[in-house]
């Protein structure tokens, strides 16, 4: 078993080609000087990034209000999601690792549950529930409650429903490794509880907090299934991409995808660095 056969090695190589072929194709054709994202190769251009539309009739990503608004909408969702995921995830991790109460195992199970619910079902259930709440409250208060209707605030809630599980798990795993005598030692040396939290516990958790934040940012930016059910008129990036892919898009979508890949690469290496610092 320790001397891999040639066939096996060949299979491994083929597998990695298979793995990266779609991504490479997407990246390469972002630079193709053609109005369609398909062969043949018609020469190198940056028009799909910074073109004003004079060359191929459609502008590049950085000049196109549709793409820019979508990216903006995604950020409007992803940033609050990441911040809330870190804050609430930390509190949840504290409850799981530090508190003692009846029903803790049940609560821990419940926190895992969102991971086994299909994203589409999460989306429709939140949509239906908040519509009912909005209907009830609007009848009662006689005002419009737009945040509870499909739109970016509801997307934030929908994404949080399962991203919180992930951030809680990441932070709780780190908190579990914490040696509580460090806190006692700091108290013993005269630190107040707030100071212990600030100078000992949070610095220890920092890699996990950053990691959880980055993962939440990424998951929010790329979430499609749950988001699809909850969007209103403001479409985040994946929704716009989906629409363009159905209709047949210009290579601008390749350029957007390349940005996404570079972003992912950057975040992934940041994450790898923080988890290395953790060890």
């Amino acid at each position, binding site marked *: 078993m320790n001397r891999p056969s040639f066939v096996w090695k060949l299979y491994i190589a083929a597998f990695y080609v298979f793995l990266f072929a779609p991504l490479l194709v997407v990246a390469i054709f972002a630079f193709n000087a053609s109005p369609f994202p398909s062969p043949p190769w018609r020469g190198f251009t940056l028009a799909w990034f910074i073109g004003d539309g004079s060359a191929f009739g459609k502008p590049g990503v950085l000049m196109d209000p549709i793409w820019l608004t979508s990216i903006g909408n995604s950020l409007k969702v992803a940033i609050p999601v990441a911040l809330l995921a870190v804050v609430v995830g930390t509190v949840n991790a504290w409850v799981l690792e530090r508190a003692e109460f009846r029903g803790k195992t049940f609560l821990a199970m419940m926190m895992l549950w969102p991971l086994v619910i299909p994203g589409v079902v999460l989306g429709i259930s939140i949509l239906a529930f908040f519509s009912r709440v909005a209907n009830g409250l609007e009848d009662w208060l006689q005002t419009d409650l737009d945040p509870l209707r499909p739109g970016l605030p509801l997307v934030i809630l929908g994404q949080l429903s399962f991203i919180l599980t992930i951030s809680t798990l990441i932070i709780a795993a780190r908190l579990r490794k914490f040696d509580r005598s460090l806190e006692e030692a700091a108290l013993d040396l005269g630190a107040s509880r707030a*100071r212990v939290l600030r100078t000992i516990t949070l610095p220890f958790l920092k890699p996990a907090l950053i990691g959880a934040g980055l993962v939440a940012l990424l998951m929010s930016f790329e979430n499609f299934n749950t988001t699809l059910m909850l969007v209103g008129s403001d479409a985040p990036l994946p929704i716009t991409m989906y629409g363009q892919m159905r209709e047949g898009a210009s290579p601008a979508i390749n350029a957007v995808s390349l940005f996404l890949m570079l972003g992912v690469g950057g975040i992934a290496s940041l994450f790898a660095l923080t988890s290395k610092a953790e060890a």
Partner: protein
Amino acid sequence: MTSPPDLDLLNITKRFGSHRAVDDVTFSVAPGEFFSILGPSGCGKTTLMRMIAGFEDPTSGDIRIRDKSMIGVPANRRPVNMVFQSLALFPMMSVGENIAYGLTCRGVARAEAEKRANRMLERVGLKGFGDRRVTALSGGQRQRVAIARCLVLEPTLVLLDEPLGALDLKLREHMKIELKQLQATFNTTFAYITHDQSEALVMSDRIAVMNQGRFEQVGSPRELYHNPATPFVASFVGETNRWQGEIASTAGGTVALRLPSGATIMGEGAASQKSALAFVRPEAIALSQDQAALGTLPNRFEGRVAAVLFDGANSSLLVETPGFDEPVRAVLPQAGPLAGIAVGAPIHLGWASQATKVFAA
């Protein structure tokens, strides 16, 4: 004692449910004293220490430091600092930051704190280590940082919770001496807990032996060793032979104890009951190949060497002796004529009645 004690515990009891972890403990520690609490694991010594540090509240009783009651005073307001079993050095800070931590908590300015931390590092022999990471230190160096971190605050009392437990044997022997010297130079009061009798005996001015939540005896290392007050102390502190029997007669301070086999040994002690325990230290037993050399000793027996336990200066013999269920253990001097004795050789043994401590069983 003219100055008030640094630490005073009055009838401290700690209950966890129905279990009494610490049961009515009273003692005081004088300024500058090295006081140890010695006991097996689970005897309540850690709970006791955590109550002094302020991490647990006593169920009843009072803890006073320099005559001020500490009941209700949180851990971060007590003039007591603790060296943790795990040392609990802050891994996210440098050595210097670890030592300056307590000072900055007190509001000492950064530059001043750093200056004092450096001076302290110099005093514990770690000059120039301020910028190192704590993870880059050796076991002994970490130990010194943990202690320096407490001493820099000039506390009334330093608590040490088995800090040598994680070190290997050689380093532990070395650190025993170093700790004692450190305590002497700083002249700070130390309260040290351990389950290792040798650590307690070597370093302490006084030792309290603790068992099942209670203090069995408080005294100097010599007192505990030579005049144990209870059977537990006699068997827990130092090596000893232990026999069970019945009191045959009492005359003055001397008692005669009859073993189940019928053999009688003479000892000292106040045993009011019939059933009793006798303890004899291995080094109190004289060995000879010639019965006449043991002369007037009241306890004289003859046996055969069952095993030679060679351990340099700590070597001893196990002597199979008629009348005793188990072999008698006796120290084998490596300088004497018996140094080369072999298993199976006949031997005479004897000891004084003062060497036999008799307790009610």
